[in-house]
């Protein structure tokens, strides 16, 4: 339902208060529904919000929550940056060079369709159970998506503006900075936002399968082995909250800044 409000709200930069009100309202209703469902079901595997909250408080008090969140967030951050950097470089190269694009297109399609599980398994077999493996396995999963989105951006670069830059002799640096980069910015922002969502989901799987001693994924996997549903939900919710915070405080303001010239 709230989808219909989205374009209007996203375009007006001053309406974050309104958006906050809607978010709080909608989440309150969801939590209320959850509490009612849990109370009706009365099942050990379907804990209510209060049970999950008490687990969260306990994990927070022991410090385990913070260590695990920080570990996972650090892995997300590094993997995300590597994926954005390498993916952008590949995408731009393919978007600007027709021959390279024709040749590597099949590789890209193969990489896009490679299941995350296969990449993760092979990474641990080939590299070993190290920190760098967790980060690489996550980044490799994301690189093809970034490359495809940035290739689209490079393909859509305006020839008109390029000619203008040539005649007016802007030079390569000014052309890159004032003509090329602003055209790529929306593609980069889109890749970043969808990238963050994908990376944090994959990082949990990597942590679970890779046998790492710390991290949200490890914690959830341990809880799963003892069917500890309140613990699974507590960590899931804590991490969703952190990622939304990054989205809200970092990515959305960045995108608003990039779009300020739009009508």
């Amino acid at each position, binding site marked *: 339902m709230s989808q219909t409000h989205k374009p209007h709200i996203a375009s007006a930069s001053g309406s974050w208060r309104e958006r906050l009100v809607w978010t709080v309202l909608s989440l309150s209703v969801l939590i209320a529904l959850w509490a009612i469902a849990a109370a009706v079901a009365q099942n050990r595997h379907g804990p209510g919000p209060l049970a999950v909250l008490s687990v969260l408080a306990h994990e927070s008090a022991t410090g385990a929550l913070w260590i695990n969140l920080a570990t996972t967030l650090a892995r997300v951050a590094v993997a995300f940056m590597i994926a954005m950097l390498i993916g952008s470089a590949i995408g731009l190269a393919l978007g600007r060079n027709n021959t390279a694009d024709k040749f590597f297109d099949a590789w890209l399609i193969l990489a896009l369709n490679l299941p995350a599980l296969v990449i993760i398994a092979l990474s641990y077999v080939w590299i070993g159970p190290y920190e760098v493996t967790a980060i690489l396995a996550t980044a490799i999963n994301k690189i093809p998506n970034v490359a495809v989105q940035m290739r689209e951006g490079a393909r859509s670069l305006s020839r*008109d*503006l390029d*000619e*203008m830059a*040539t*005649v*007016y*002799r*802007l030079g390569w640096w*000014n052309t890159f900075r*004032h*003509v090329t980069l*602003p055209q790529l910015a929306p593609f980069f922002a889109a890749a970043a936002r969808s990238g963050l969502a994908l990376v944090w989901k994959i990082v949990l799987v990597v942590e679970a399968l890779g046998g790492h001693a710390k991290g949200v994924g490890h914690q959830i996997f341990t809880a799963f082995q003892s069917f500890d549903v309140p613990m699974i939900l507590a960590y899931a919710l804590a991490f969703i909250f952190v990622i939304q915070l990054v989205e809200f405080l970092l990515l959305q303001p960045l995108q608003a800044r990039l779009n*300020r*010239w*739009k*009508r």
Partner: protein
Amino acid sequence: MNAHQPIGHAASLEINVEAKTFSPVAGRPSQPVLRNVNLTVEPRSFLVLTGPSGCGKSTLLNIVAGLDTDYAGHIRFAAVDPRIAFIFQTPRLLPWRTVEENITLPLPKGDPRRARVPELIARVGLSGTETAYPERLSLGMQRRVAIARGFALQPDILLMDEPFVSLDEPTAQSLRTLVIELWQSHPTTVLFVTHDRPEAVRLATRIVRLSQLTDTMTSNVLADGPIVLTENQRKDPASIRAEQARFFDAQ
């Protein structure tokens, strides 16, 4: 006809395009567009290229600008390293840069020409819009920004490719007056493309008429001659009609 002569003192620019052919695209055969277009352009002249669409007038402008290098012939400039400004058919502004940034971008930091930009912005009637983004302006205003960008460069050669199309007539008329005034106060060699005959007569000191190339033609220059009108006559529709009849109907 194709003799390579050193560029004379009196010329700002020499155009010798022996042949320009568009490569075949999507099943369409290759298509010759320009043949033996040889023009010596005097400094500070306002040369208007006119002719039907497809006669190659925009192509000729792109060749002079250096954007199209796939042709037989050569272009010579009097200036060693000529500054060329191009006012395109669409404004081609950077939507993510402000009006002022768009105008100053081609000028290096610390360049004395930057000091004259505020005056130029006022002259083209853009005062108060310096910090606006182009997409918030009307097309007429965006064209003014493009004109200011071209003149801010203080170019040796100013190219204009139908810069007033898709404007209402009063707006187009006021921009024509503006371009003439700017050209008179910042004299430069102008190559101006239009298919609008009254516009050509109103602006030109010389008109070169191109025609669509056919296989039997040795050149697509159909006519080439001066327009001799006083400043007052250029503002008078009857004088423009008379001169238009003299130039276009005589051939």
